[in-house]
């Protein structure tokens, strides 16, 4: 049995999914965070079922890649039951998708999520009446608190057993007549079977001019195509609007009517959080708060990280000579053991102290709903680099990890925007590179210097954006973005999300780190590292860096934080300033931030923007890194 969670963006599908699966799908308070589907198995009253969390979609006429993915999955035809998740506080708008889902004639349950939020807004919903109108069960829930989830799934089970399909609700008579006539034509030619959808659904998609269904048809028969155009014209003439507007207006009116018949409005309870936008979106205070929030965020990460890094490094620093006392430092086994210890130490003492506060802080900002506000504030600035406000979301996620940032570019409508945003996202210092900035620059030079690195980085991104948008002079489609209500973040959920993101470091990067530092130990033991270092010597001498840095740059392609940890190992001390000057530290950091994206990023770029553009990105960033690092060498 396959159950699909389907609903508009930000309605809580992933929250329901996580309640069943454990925290597996990242949730945040911004529309469109789920860009690919996630699967889990669950035991439903003794039967094994598969639950799929689909990206949110406003309608079944889809525009961006994430929405298309959701629709494609649903139309593939092996979904046994649909759970239509609705944000109850946005009921009237959400019903437009519900009407379309009913047209698919699949067994369905409606989940009225965030029912508490709706009540707070003074929206009281007659659940029984709603269920009667649609002919499918309606289950109220508060997914974030786990309320109603059990009932939701037991209802889904019952519906699946009975194969209960909802009612199709008719439009006004003249529109319905056109729809019926076209449906009959479709049925006659059996086109609906090809798509595996009901004929009425297909008729509506044709009247809506949905490009996916239209193009697929244009190739095959011109006869029906002419008829479609004819029916579209009838609607256009009788209503004075394009046929797609006629259909969407019909759905809109139906939804509004249903909404009015099931809802009784009472006085809304306002809370302090409703006034937050008076500051955070204010034309002047908004920008001040934005700067302040990020400045505080920066200081918090550095303060918390430093507090832990210092004592831990001291501890590990004492440990290695201790090993040297019991094992002869000139043996192979000492090399291996000290390699492993350094790999472990690097993870615990240098990476984790900065990674945790950063990811936790990001989770809180995401869940609060601040990210779409930033998109609003910065839209005008992003237009200057040829993008629009929504692009800020992948960029901010890029400070966490570049891989989800590039995935998140799917929320952008045009291919050109996705390409530019992807290239720029690779240059944003992800959490791995952040640990380098904090543990090297902030720790050994000064926090101000680290802040300067971030500012320089933003300037370089702006200039690169300008260059790229000059190369691809196409007008960005402009921002249309829902600004969701604030939600008070749950600490438990934020911790779960932080843990999900840290797992990537702990289970993928850390083992790599330990293996990497062991390999480096072996290379050093057999004096092979010099071969690699000599190969890189033209680069290292151009940048004025110690020769031993060469090897670390190779490791940096695997994982960015490796290059720093390997650096510490390669120069043989964690007291970096004893070996490298502050200029060298700065040059190294600048180079590592910009050069070649890490292996995981290259893989996701390859998938999202194609091989040619990925190779372009690699070349572009490498040249940029060499230029910037050379300048740093002579200027800093």
């Amino acid at each position: 049995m396959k159950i699909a969670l389907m609903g508009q963006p930000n309605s809580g599908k992933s929250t329901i999914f996580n309640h069943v699966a454990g925290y597996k799908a990242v949730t945040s308070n911004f529309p469109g965070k789920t860009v690919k589907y996630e699967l889990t198995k669950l035991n439903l009253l003794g039967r094994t079922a598969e639950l799929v969390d689909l990206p949110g979609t406003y309608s079944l006429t889809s525009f961006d890649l994430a929405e298309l993915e959701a629709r494609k999955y649903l139309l593939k035809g092996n979904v046994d039951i649909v759970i239509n998740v609705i944000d109850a506080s946005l009921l009237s708008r959400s019903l437009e998708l519900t009407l379309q889902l009913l047209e698919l004639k699949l067994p369905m349950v409606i989940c009225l999520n965030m029912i508490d939020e709706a009540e707070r807004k003074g929206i009281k919903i007659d659940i029984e009446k709603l269920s009667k109108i649609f002919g499918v069960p309606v289950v109220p829930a508060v997914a974030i608190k786990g309320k109603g989830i059990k009932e939701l799934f037991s209802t889904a089970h019952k519906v699946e057993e009975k194969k209960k399909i909802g009612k199709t609700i008719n439009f006004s008579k003249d529109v319905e007549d056109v729809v019926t006539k076209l449906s009959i034509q479709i049925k006659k030619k059996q086109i609906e079977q090809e798509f595996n959808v009901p004929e009425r659904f297909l008729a509506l998609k044709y009247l809506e001019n949905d490009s996916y269904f239209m193009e697929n048809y244009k190739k095959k028969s011109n006869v029906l195509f002419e008829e479609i155009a004819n029916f579209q014209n009838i609607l256009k003439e009788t209503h004075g609007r394009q046929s797609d507007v006629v259909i969407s207006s019909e759905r809109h009116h139906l939804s509004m009517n249903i909404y009015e018949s099931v809802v009784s409005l009472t006085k809304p309870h306002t809370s302090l959080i409703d006034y937050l936008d008076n500051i955070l979106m204010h034309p002047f205070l908004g920008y001040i708060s934005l700067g302040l929030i990020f400045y505080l965020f920066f200081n918090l990460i550095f303060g918390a990280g430093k507090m832990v890094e210092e004592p831990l490094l001291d501890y590990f620093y004492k440990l290695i000579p201790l090993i040297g006392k019991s094992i002869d430092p000139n043996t192979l086994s000492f090399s291996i053991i000290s390699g492993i210890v350094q790999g472990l130490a690097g993870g615990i003492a240098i990476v984790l102290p900065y990674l945790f506060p950063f990811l936790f802080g990001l989770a809180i900002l995401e869940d609060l709903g601040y990210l779409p506000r930033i998109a609003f504030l910065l839209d005008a600035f992003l237009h200057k680099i040829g993008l629009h406000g929504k692009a800020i979301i992948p960029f901010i996620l890029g400070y966490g990890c570049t891989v989800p940032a590039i995935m998140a570019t799917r929320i952008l409508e045009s291919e050109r925007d996705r390409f530019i945003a992807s290239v720029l996202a690779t240059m944003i210092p992800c959490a791995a590179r952040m640990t380098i900035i904090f543990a090297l620059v902030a720790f050994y030079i000064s926090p101000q210097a680290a802040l300067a690195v971030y500012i320089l980085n933003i300037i370089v991104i702006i200039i690169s954006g300008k260059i790229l948008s000059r190369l691809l002079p196409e007008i960005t489609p402009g921002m249309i973005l829902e600004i969701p209500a604030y939600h008070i973040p749950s600490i438990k959920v934020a911790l779960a999300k932080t843990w999900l993101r840290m797992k990537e470091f702990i289970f993928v990067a850390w083992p790599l780190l330990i293996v990497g530092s062991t390999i480096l130990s072996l290379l050093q033991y057999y004096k092979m590292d010099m071969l690699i270092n000599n190969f890189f010597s033209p680069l290292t001498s151009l940048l004025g860096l110690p020769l031993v840095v060469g090897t670390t740059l190779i490791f940096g392609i695997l994982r960015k934080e490796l290059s720093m940890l390997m650096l510490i190992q390669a120069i043989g001390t964690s007291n970096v300033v004893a070996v490298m000057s502050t200029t060298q530290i700065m040059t190294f950091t600048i180079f590592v931030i910009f050069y070649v994206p890490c292996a995981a990023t290259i893989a996701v770029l390859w998938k999202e923007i194609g091989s040619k553009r990925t190779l372009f990105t690699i070349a572009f960033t490498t040249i940029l890194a060499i230029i910037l690092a050379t300048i740093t060498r002579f200027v800093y």
Partner: protein
Amino acid sequence: MIITLDSIGENQKAKVVSISGGWGVRQRLGCLGIHPGDILTVKRSAIMRGPILVSVHGNQVALGRGVARRVVVEAE
């Protein structure tokens, strides 16, 4: 008076007359509850010809300046 949405001031109401953009813009706005006939309230207008924030059916939507220019409205 018939004007476009980008010239509506803060805290003013407007009724949508038509949407002059292409299919994509029409559909996208429709999904967010903006159709001909709907009443919008402009909540905020960002500086530097940035986006505007409208409230429609109890929901807030940010529209880039270029998008707002395509929404023909009647000031209330």
